[in-house]
Structures are given as C-alpha cells and as structure tokens.
C-alpha cells in the first residue's frame, strides 16, 4: 500500500510552470531520491508534498494511515536561524509542536521524545549549547533530530548535506540510512547523484526528461546515464 501517491502533478508559481506531469508513488520503507538540475522544481515539489503550497493541477493522496502532521521535514536553513538565540534542546523540542495541538506546553512524553531524538542523532552533549554557534554538520544533525520529533513514518529532506565537509556528509548519510533501516520512509532532494544512487531505492529525476523508478532502472535509463556522465565530466575537469 502506497503511503504517498502523486498523479499528473503540475507545479509552478502564478502562471509560470516549473514542472509538469509528475506521477510517482512512495511505499512504506522506501528511500526516494529526487535529483535534477537547479530550477527543475525539486524544492517546489517538496513544499507541495508538505502542503505548504498548492499544486497547479494534479493530486497528492496519502494512504496507509499517514496524517498530514506526521511528516518530518528537514528544510534548507533560513537566514533567520543564523542569528537566532536558541539552545539545541529548544530547537529539537519545537519539533514536537505538531503533537501538541492546542496544548500550550510540552508534556513529559514529548520531552522524552526530544531527548531520545537527540541521543539518536548524537547531539545530546550539545543540548545546552546555542544553535547558531554549532558547526554546519552539528546544526544539520540537530535539525534532523527535530524532524524526527515530528515524523512518525516519513522524513522529507531538502539537500541535507549541502555545505557540509566530506566527513560530516558521510556521517549524515549514515544517520539517514540508519533511520531508513529502522522503517522510516525517506524522501530526499540531492545534488549528490553518486550518493543518491548508492543509498536510494527509488529515483525521481526532474527536468526535461522526467524519470521515476527503482534505481536499477534509472542507471540503465538514458536520463540517468546522461546525468551521471555530466557529473563525471565535472569531477574530471
């Protein structure tokens, strides 16, 4: 049973179409990577999946008991966060907000959940530190811990490794892979095609040639090989 079914989706702003005729399904336990050139509508797609913006046409159906507020989200960092005075614990705890509903304060089980998420991401020792003073890799792990507080089944990650050094990048991928092995469905936007191919079970390639399918097929398909070649060329150069 698919937890997410997208049909004939067209994305855009006002009258400008960013991407059209997207159709794909995500099953529980999948690891979907969304790849494609800049401007192909990856982030717009993710915002639409989160219902932060509405699609121009097409439908998104959730199934398998997935509710709107059970999707965890790791957004690209905003400018506000660069000088926001907030401790790591405060940031992680704010991920429980969706569970709170109209209740004004966090209860004990939510606080425990936050502690557990921090432990799982290895940031418990930083709990009292100021978020903006952490390194990029630490910040991403804190935001991932926050996303875990909101996620029961699905995590959406928007370029989780952009701006990280190689060591932090591979740590981040390991953490994400571990979460996927524990049964959390992962949907990730990535520029890093090599990592996408290594970790993902499914690939959605956006752009002129839209491709969706298991990664084995993607590797054989034209869109993928061309993209890989380009990437290879860039790395050689």
């Amino acid at each position, binding site marked *: 049973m698919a937890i997410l079914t997208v049909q004939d989706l067209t994305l855009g702003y006002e009258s400008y179409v960013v991407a059209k005729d997207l159709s794909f399904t995500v099953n529980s336990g999948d690891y979907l990577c969304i790849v494609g050139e800049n401007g192909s509508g990856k982030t717009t797609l993710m915002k639409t999946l989160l219902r932060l913006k509405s699609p121009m046409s097409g439908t998104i159906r959730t199934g398998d008991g997935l509710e709107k507020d059970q999707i965890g989200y790791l957004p690209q960092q905003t400018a506000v966060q660069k000088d926001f005075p907030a401790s790591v614990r405060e940031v992680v705890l*704010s991920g429980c907000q969706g569970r709170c509903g109209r209740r004004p304060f966090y209860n004990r089980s939510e606080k425990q959940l936050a502690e557990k998420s921090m432990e799982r991401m290895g940031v418990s020792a930083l709990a009292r530190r100021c978020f903006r003073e952490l390194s990029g890799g630490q910040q991403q792990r804190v935001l991932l811990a926050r996303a875990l507080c909101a996620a029961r089944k699905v995590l959406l990650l928007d370029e989780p490794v952009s701006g990280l050094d190689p060591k932090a990048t591979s740590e981040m991928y390991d953490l994400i892979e571990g979460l996927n092995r524990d049964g959390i469905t992962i949907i990730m936007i990535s520029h890093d095609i090599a990592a996408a191919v290594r970790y993902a079970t499914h690939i959605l390639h956006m752009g002129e040639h839209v491709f969706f399918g298991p990664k084995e097929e993607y590797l054989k398909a034209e869109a993928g090989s061309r993209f890989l070649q380009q990437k290879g060329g860039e790395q050689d150069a």
Partner: protein
Amino acid sequence: MLEKLGMYLQYPFVRYALIVGVLIALCSSLLGVTLVLKRYSFIGDGLSHVAFGAMAVAAVLNLTNEMLLVLPITIICAILLLRTGQHAKIKGDAAIAMISVVTLAFGYLIMNIFSTSSNLSGDVCSTLFGSTSILTLTKREVWICIALSVAVVAIFILFYNKIFAVTFDEDFAKASGTDANAYNLLVAIIIAVIIVLAMNLVGSLLISALVIFPALSAMRLFRSFRSVTICAAVLSVFCAFLGIIISILAGTPVGSTIVAVDAIVFGLCYIGGKLFGGIHA
C-alpha cells in the same frame, strides 16, 4: 535625594506613572526578540505613526474615548503589515516605511486643518514624544492598562512555545501541522495593543526603542530563547523604572530619558558580551 523621591511618590500621578511605565515596558519587551529576528524592528515606529494618525482623526471627530478608534485601526494595520511580509510584492520594510510616513503626514495634516486647540504644535509634540501624558493618567486609564498588560503577558506565556516554533522556522511549523498564520495574526494583534498602550509613555517617535532595545541587549548576553526573553523583560522593566525616577528627579522628559537609559544599558551589554563571550545558559 531620597527625601525628594519620597515626597514625589506621595502623589498618586507619580505612582500611576511608575505602574503604567513598568507594565508597558514589560509587555513591549516580550515580543521584541521575535520582531527583531523577523526583521520587523521598525514595526513599532510604523504602527505608532498609524496610531498617531488615528488619534488625530479621533481628536477632530471629538470622540470622548479615542481608544475605540485608535486600537482597531492600529490592529488592522499590524495585520496587513505582518501578513504582506511573507510573500509580498512590497517587502516588509518598504511597506512599514510607506505606512509610517503616510499616516504621520496625514495625521498632522488633519490636525492642522481641523484643529480646535490653540496650542497645535504643543499637542503634536506631546503625541510624538509622549512628554506629559504619562503624568496625567486617570485611575481608569491605569486600570485599563493593567488589564491589557495582564492579558498580553498571559497570552504570551500560553503561546510561548508556538511563537518560538513559528519564529524559528515557519515552514517547518506549518509542515508539522501548526497553524503559523494564526500565530502571526496573534503576534500582530498583541504588538498593536502594546504600541497603543506605549504611546502614552514614550510617544510615537521613540516607541521602537522600547520594543527592540531590551531584546538586542539580552541577545548580547544570553544564548537561549528562554533566557533572552526573560533577560529582555527584566532589563526593560529596570530601564523604565530607572528612567521614570530620573526624569522625575531631574525634570527631564519621561520618554526620552527611558530611551536614553535603554541605550546605555545596551552599550553595557554589548561590552559585557564582548568581554565574556556570552553566558552559556
């Protein structure tokens, strides 16, 4: 000097001024952190000019209770400003600047054309700088102010966690099912109420100081949202209290004295933050 102070404190109007001043300072500091971080530092200025314009209209219409007109108009403008801030064609700062000057000009124009008072420039000056109105409060005004302050503080405490979540990351809050727009609306209404209240204390022109200085000072020293908020509230109350006392003893204008104290405290916090690298709590 203490004797002189004791003598002044026997007058009810001095006590009223102290109570109202401290309460307004407390309320205005609470949302300061949120507004500074959302790049809305100048919303205090913009909205207080709106309130100035509305007051001019109320004065011309000869309304007995001008609050009935001033508060709704200010709230509507606050909502419009904070709403358009998100994805607007005219960005937040430009919109604030626009509304701010238009209502200021409009208010002065109306007062000038329809004025019944003989001392027009005096009236305008006291609305802009709040020079005397805080010392002429009636008992009823003091009670209104106490009631509104209690409401503001209570709402802030109840929604503290939501306000944090929405300020820190609006998209994430929305995605996890928090109604971010509703809380932005709430912040807009609260800030409008505070500004209308605070106009009595420091007047239209200096109001931004009450909103942003305590937050900026606290951000030099502390590193977590909760401690910054608490520190801002404490600093703001301290500065307002000290400012009013000094102005009574030295005979200086209340509003500008408070702002001067706020500015000096900010300087001290800035140096303190540099020296000690902040308090990690």
